[in-house]
Each structure stands twice: as structure tokens, then as C-alpha cells.
């Protein structure tokens, strides 16, 4: 079965949607957000460790992007531009929350709060979240950008402002730490 022309036409490009929004069509921003909620929500969730903070960061990033849309010089690369804003928002959210609080998962585990889900799968997922949460924020960011979002070190350097060698070291240390943490659990 082939897609009808009408179906193809209902998926305008990012650049087209950006153009409409810039012309005052706020409704055109909805489809843009929907595209990237799904795509970028994963990064925010894993970096911040819970849905609530991830949704807040995503909302903030979308709002900032809308307000700054005239600064998006290459609308066809809206996704990369938006992702940069989200990465920065996630960093800021982590700073605001504080490093100790950012490692909420292990604290919850110590209190017995974080294992409230009875399903084994949910517990494994929480174990993964706890492991990621025990990385320092810079290592967690680098690990996710490298292996989950599949960026090159060059792209990561451009995105974060850190040097490539520093990023490689962060990824290396993140892997070492995760390997150690996960070797003591059966979550993987």
C-alpha cells in the first residue's frame, strides 16, 4: 500500500512549520512540539531521572524556543537548535535542583520509596535510573549524548562547549562507573 498524496501533505517539514509560526500561526507550533516531545523526551527523562522534571524541562525548552524563534537561523535544522536549548535547560534544571537532590534515586532507594512498583520490569527500570543517577551530571550528560543520542564527539563538543578530550574522559568514566554499579545488580 502506498501513502496517498493527501497523507504526505499533512506532514510539513520543520522549516515549513517554523515559517508558519513566525508568521503568527501559533497552532503550527503544536505539531513541532509533538515531533520532538517523543524524540527528545527520552533524553530529558534519563538525564533528570523522572517524568515530572523531564516534562518541565521540555516545556521550558519549547517555550524558550518559541520566544527565540527569530534566532533560529536555519529552520531546516530546527531539531538540532531545539535540542541545544533542551540540553541547556536540563543542565540548568540539574543545577537548580542541586547535585544531591539530583541523585534522588539512591536516596529514595534508601528510604524504600523508590521500589514501590511491584512489577519486576519496573524495578529493573528503576535500577537503571538509579545507576544513571549516581553518575555526576557531566558524565551522565556525556554518556547519554554519546551512546543514547548517538552524537559524535565533535557534535557533543559543539553542543556542550566542552573539549573533545574532556568529553571522551567523561564517557570513559561513566562507563567504568556504570559497569561497576550494574555488575552488582541483575537489572541488566
Amino acid at each position, binding site marked *: 500500500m502506498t501513502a496517498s498524496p493527501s497523507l504526505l501533505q499533512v506532514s510539513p517539514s520543520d522549516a515549513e512549520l517554523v515559517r508558519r509560526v513566525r508568521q503568527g500561526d*501559533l497552532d503550527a*507550533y503544536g505539531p513541532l*512540539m*509533538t515531533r520532538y*516531545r*517523543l524524540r527528545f*523526551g*527520552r533524553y*530529558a*527523562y*534519563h538525564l533528570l531521572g523522572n*517524568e515530572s522534571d*523531564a*516534562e*518541565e524541562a*521540555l*516545556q*521550558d525548552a*519549547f*517555550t*524558550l524556543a*518559541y*520566544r*527565540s524563534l527569530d534566532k533560529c537561523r536555519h529552520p531546516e535544522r530546527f*531539531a*538540532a537548535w531545539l*535540542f*541545544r*536549548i533542551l540540553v*541547556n535547560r536540563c*543542565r*540548568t534544571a540539574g*543545577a*537548580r*535542583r*542541586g*547535585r544531591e537532590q539530583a541523585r534522588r534515586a539512591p536516596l529514595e532507594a534508601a528510604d524504600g520509596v523508590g521500589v514501590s512498583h511491584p512489577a519486576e520490569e519496573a524495578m529493573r*527500570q528503576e535500577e*537503571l535510573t538509579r*545507576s*544513571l543517577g549516581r553518575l555526576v551530571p557531566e558524565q551522565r550528560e556525556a554518556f*547519554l549524548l*554519546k*551512546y*543514547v*543520542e*548517538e*552524537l*559524535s*564527539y565533535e557534535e557533543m563538543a559543539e553542543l556542550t*562547549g566542552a573539549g573533545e578530550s574532556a568529553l*571522551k574522559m567523561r*564517557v*570513559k568514566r561513566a*562507563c567504568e562507573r*556504570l*559497569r561497576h554499579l*550494574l*555488575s552488582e545488580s541483575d537489572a*541488566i
Partner: protein
Amino acid sequence: MRSDDRSPLAEGSEDPADPVIERLVARLREPVSLSPGVERVVLERLRAEAASGAGQSEAAVPLVFRPRSRRWPALVSAVAAGLAAAFAGGVLFGRWSTRPPGDAAGVRPVEFALRTPADSAVALVGDFNDWNPGATPLRRASDGVWMVTVPLRPGRYRYTFIVDGTSWRRDPAAPRALEDDFGAPTSVITIAQR
């Protein structure tokens, strides 16, 4: 973002493939579906702003220098007031501005300052640096005053400070942003068109 079928650990010889990390990465790449309410909240927020004209009223804040004698040591206030008098020209400082006029594009150096007993670091985040906490660190001046100068075009910017990487601090000498909607205290600065 790239999508190819390479092993996620194939690149970078500093970290050889490891089955534990491979399995972790595979799990982390699974989709995470956040609530569609995200879009609804943002659209409602933006529509409310448009309806209320948020952002317009604060732009009308008088562009005058306001001495900060209650917040700053007398010497600092005197210097700031002197600079303002010398360069009075329609620039509102985010917490003091006062440099000579900028370039043809209207870019002005704007000095931001915060007095705080921070131990390690103070950063400035705002609309002008994509809220990146690593982009604009302040330097420690003296007597607990941290400062940084940022070139800004005429316009309206929201900003705040991050102290020691953990605490948000609104500029006590600047108007609070009306759309202070990030759950964090935010100030606003308006750079006038000359």
C-alpha cells in the same frame, strides 16, 4: 542525531565494547513517552502571554540608574553612580551597565553584578545565552561582589544567576519577569534602542 546500525560502543577506542554497557544502552534507547500534556501546557502558556501582552509592560520600566546603596558598599555604589553619570545614555543595567555606546549594530556591553558569599562560582543564565549555566561565569571582584560583562543588542532579556551550581538567585536590583514561569526566580533587563 545520527541513526545508523553501528554498535554504540564501536566508536572510540578508549572504551572497548562491553556487554553490560551494550545492554544498558539498548534499554536506554527504548522510547520514553512523556505526556502529550506538555504541548497543551506550552500552548496555553504562550496564548496567555499573547493575550496579556506579557513582555510589553516591563519594557516600559524607566531606563534610569538607581543607586544601590542599600545593597552595595558605599565605594561600589559611588563608582557605579559615577560611571552612570558619565555614560548616561539610555542603557538599563542589569545591574549596572554603563559602558560607552556600542557598535553600529547597537551592541552594548552590559555589566551584571551580584553580591553573594558564594564559595566557588556564580553563573549568569538568560535569553542571551540559551540559559546555559556554563556559558557566562562571573568573576569574583571584591567584597563578595561577582561581575561579568555581556555584549547585548537592544531588546528585552530575562535572566537569573546560579550560585555555586545549585541555587537560583534573582537580581535584587532588577524587575521581576512577569512570565517567571520556570519555577525559578527570574529578572528582566531592557536595553534601549539609541
